[in-house]
């Protein structure tokens, strides 16, 4: 089976390289037969990466410890689900997962574009297949997931206990889907540059891919945050680790792109900027992949392998240089079609939004690479950790939230003073009232009151948008209000889906501000029967129990919880020790409600039953996860196909490209 897998990788490499060249030549020379061959090459490359993936999965699930990768990441006692998840747990397996996703997405692009975008698709395939060839080449010649051991061990090492969590099943694949997903809009942008079709076709064709990649990356980050919060046991959900930052940066730039393409679609402006944004977003995806695998930045998430760093750096350099060079060559053809009608318009506010989003990404990038810069310039190692990122990005994100409230209130093209006054009155009044109320009631620091005021402003602004739309439908069409809300949303899914996403972001921000600014913690060592007090909670330690569960030795502490004199029941926090592993896994006890989380960690214990705990009260954390669910809903609505809009696509979109034979797919 390892031989089959390796053969599939090598054959896949050859096929992908051929397909990349054939697609390009077919498109340039308008050779229909060659394009048909290249199309088949895309399907073949997908088939071969699927065979390689199936061979690795077979090894992972059947404990074929003659394969080094299988021996390193699975064990006989590990559940099959986690043996499956080992596919993306290590360097070589995750590269294969990357390649498989890329080949799958390439096929989906072909299938979905049978009737549209025929000028662009061959170039899109050329780009995705070239990237696929590079990944398969890396595996074929430098990081072989099917490398065998001279002697197969009796059992494998299994996953790190911290990875033995449902988060491992969903969080990494989501991030990979985001990273790989951004390949497709990037490929469309490059296709537009090569083909000279520099209008909005490539944006329309790749819009859902962008949304999908953006959403997958965002959800992947949220799932990672949830995992860290429930498993790592430090009471936080975001550690500003270089690898976390690496997945956050393309999301921020992708967010900027999703906004700025609206200006190009509506006004024919920002063509250069949009191509630049997608080049940056994809380059940051490669940067994130490189950071995780090169070990150039110190991170708890990384799994570095010898040649991975230089190979990814070479790819990143080639992608950046090639795409920027192409953009430079096309600059004269990328002039804006129209101009701004007014300084105060939604277009201007979107530009500001882009500036802040890209600025936030740059601030995080700068902080991530500053240690390297410091060492190069001064020869002194420095660290850029959470305090820096919180302090630098906090004001930028606050400004973004403010802008999120302002944008819907300003009309496209030109906003009159009368409109502005009318639209701003209520949100502004509520925002100011929130700040005054919170400060009068003693909230400190001032930044927290300001942040909540901005959130109130932004939330009111978005709710007003819904209110006006619903009222218009009620008055104009006599619709019942309960019916008018879903119909309003369904009638313009991108617009109202987007607003729902904004509501999700506001809820996430609410949780972040509450938990970052007002968390309380206490550490205590207590004997059975003694109590720990934090805010209005009283925790009474009942005692320790130890037991075996599967392959794990577990030590658990039980505490009774009271809040304001009322019993809330018992909580259990534990540490579990996997056989053959020194490091235990912490299972924290979290009692969550909309107001706050009571977060209890068992830190240690002694023979006499005395135990040490760290207890935190983290306000409003639940809203982060609720916000994530709302974001999911909003994205799904915005993503949903609009049959009427597609049926009315410009005619040029549905006509076969000149000189190219119609597709037989």
């Amino acid at each position, binding site marked *: 089976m390892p031989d089959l897998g390796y053969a599939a990788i090598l054959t896949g490499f050859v096929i992908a390289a051929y397909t990349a060249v054939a697609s390009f030549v077919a498109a340039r020379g308008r050779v229909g037969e060659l394009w048909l061959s290249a199309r088949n090459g895309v399907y073949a490359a997908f088939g071969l990466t699927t065979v390689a993936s199936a061979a690795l999965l077979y090894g992972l699930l059947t404990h074929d410890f003659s394969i080094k990768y299988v021996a390193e990441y699975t064990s006989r006692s590990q559940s099959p689900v986690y043996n499956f998840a080992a596919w993306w747990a290590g360097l070589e397996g995750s590269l294969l997962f990357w390649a498989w996703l890329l080949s799958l997405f390439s096929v989906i692009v072909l299938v979905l574009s049978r009737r549209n975008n025929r000028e662009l698709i061959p170039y899109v395939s050329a780009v995705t297949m070239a990237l696929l060839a590079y990944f398969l080449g890396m595996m074929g010649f430098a990081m072989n997931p099917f490398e065998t051991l001279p002697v197969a061990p009796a059992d494998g090492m299994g996953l790190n206990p911290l990875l033995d969590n449902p988060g491992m099943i969903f969080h990494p694949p989501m991030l990979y889907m985001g990273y790989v997903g951004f390949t497709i809009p990037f490929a469309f942008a490059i296709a537009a540059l090569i083909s000279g079709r520099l209008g909005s076709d490539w944006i329309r064709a790749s819009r859902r891919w962008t949304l999908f990649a953006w959403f997958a990356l965002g959800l992947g980050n949220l799932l990672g945050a949830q995992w860290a919060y429930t498993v790592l046991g*430090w009471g936080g959900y975001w550690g500003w680790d270089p690898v976390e930052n690496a997945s956050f940066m393309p999301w921020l730039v992708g967010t900027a792109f999703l906004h700025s393409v609206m200006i190009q679609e509506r006004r024919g402006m920002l063509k250069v900027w949009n191509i630049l944004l997608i080049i940056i977003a994809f380059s940051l995806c490669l940067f994130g992949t490189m950071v995780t695998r090169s070990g150039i930045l110190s991170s708890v998430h990384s799994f570095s392998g010898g040649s991975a760093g230089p190979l990814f750096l070479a790819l990143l350099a080639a992608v950046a240089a090639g795409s920027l060079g192409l953009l430079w060559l096309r600059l004269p053809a990328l002039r804006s079609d*129209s101009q701004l*009608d007014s*300084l105060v318009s939604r277009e201007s506010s979107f530009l500001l939004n882009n500036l802040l989003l890209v600025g936030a990404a740059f601030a995080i990038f700068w902080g991530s690479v500053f240690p390297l810069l410091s060492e190069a310039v001064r020869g002194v190692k*420095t*660290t850029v950790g959470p305090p820096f990122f919180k302090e*630098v990005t906090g004001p930028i994100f606050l400004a973004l939230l403010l802008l999120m409230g302002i944008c819907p209130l300003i009309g496209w093209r030109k906003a009159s003073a009368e409109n502005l006054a009318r639209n701003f009155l209520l949100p502004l009044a509520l925002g100011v009232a929130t700040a005054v109320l919170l400060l009068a009631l003693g909230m400190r620091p001032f930044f927290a009151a300001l942040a909540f005021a901005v959130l109130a402003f932004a939330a009111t602004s978005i709710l007003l948008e819904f209110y006006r739309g619903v009222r218009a439908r009620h008055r104009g069409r006599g619709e019942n209000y309960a019916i008018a809300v879903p119909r309003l949303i369904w009638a313009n899914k991108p617009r109202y889906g987007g607003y729902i996403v904004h509501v999700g972001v506001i809820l996430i921000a609410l949780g972040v501000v509450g938990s970052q600014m007002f968390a309380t913690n206490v550490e205590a060592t207590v004997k059975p029967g003694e109590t720990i007090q934090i805010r209005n909670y009283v925790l009474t330690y009942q005692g320790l129990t130890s037991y075996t569960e599967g392959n794990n030795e577990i030590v658990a502490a039980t505490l009774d919880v009271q809040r304001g004199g009322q019993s809330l029941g018992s909580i259990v926090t534990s540490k579990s020790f996997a056989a053959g592993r020194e490091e235990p896994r912490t299972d924290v006890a979290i009692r969550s409600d909309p107001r706050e989380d009571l977060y209890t960690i068992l830190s240690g214990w002694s023979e006499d039953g005395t135990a040490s705990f760290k207890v935190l009260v983290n306000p409003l954390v639940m809203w982060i996860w609720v916000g994530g669910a709302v974001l999911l809903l909003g994205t799904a609505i915005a993503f949903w196909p609009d049959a009427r809009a597609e049926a009315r696509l410009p005619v040029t979109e549905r006509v076969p490209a000149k000189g190219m034979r119609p597709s037989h797919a």
Partner: protein
Amino acid sequence: MPRAILIGALMALFAVGGLLVAVTTAPQGATASGPPTVDDLTDELMCQCGCGMTLANCFESMECTVSGSMATEIQQQIDEGKNKGEISDYFVAQYGEAVLASPRKSGFGLAAWTIPFLTIAAGGGATAWLVWLWARRRSPRGHRAAVRAQDAGLLRRYEDQVDEDLKALE
């Protein structure tokens, strides 16, 4: 009915406001003034075990003896009456600048703190200039109209219609 929705939305916002007040005005564990606590410093110093985490995070999430002994050192320094800055200096002397979780706001470290904001400010200036330029050099109305008709999507037309309907109804 719309008034009822508006009132309902406002009440919901006030309820959230009340929740915020209840949550955030509760007594805090930490004090702003007075001698520093171990917690004040464990977030600002990096564990030296190679985990790449702050002392606070490493201490809670890993079985690490290094973070424990560093926390004990912090307590000793506090007991000696040192302030936060002096304790940070003590650790820098022992482990080098990399022990600080963020660069100092002086010398070369100042670049880390200022460059992001200077870049955004420069970008803001460039954006403002571009917006002003674009607004000033408006293209001929006829050309714009033609371009719009050709390039604008269905979405824009729909939203414009919604805006017009709203205006007519209000």
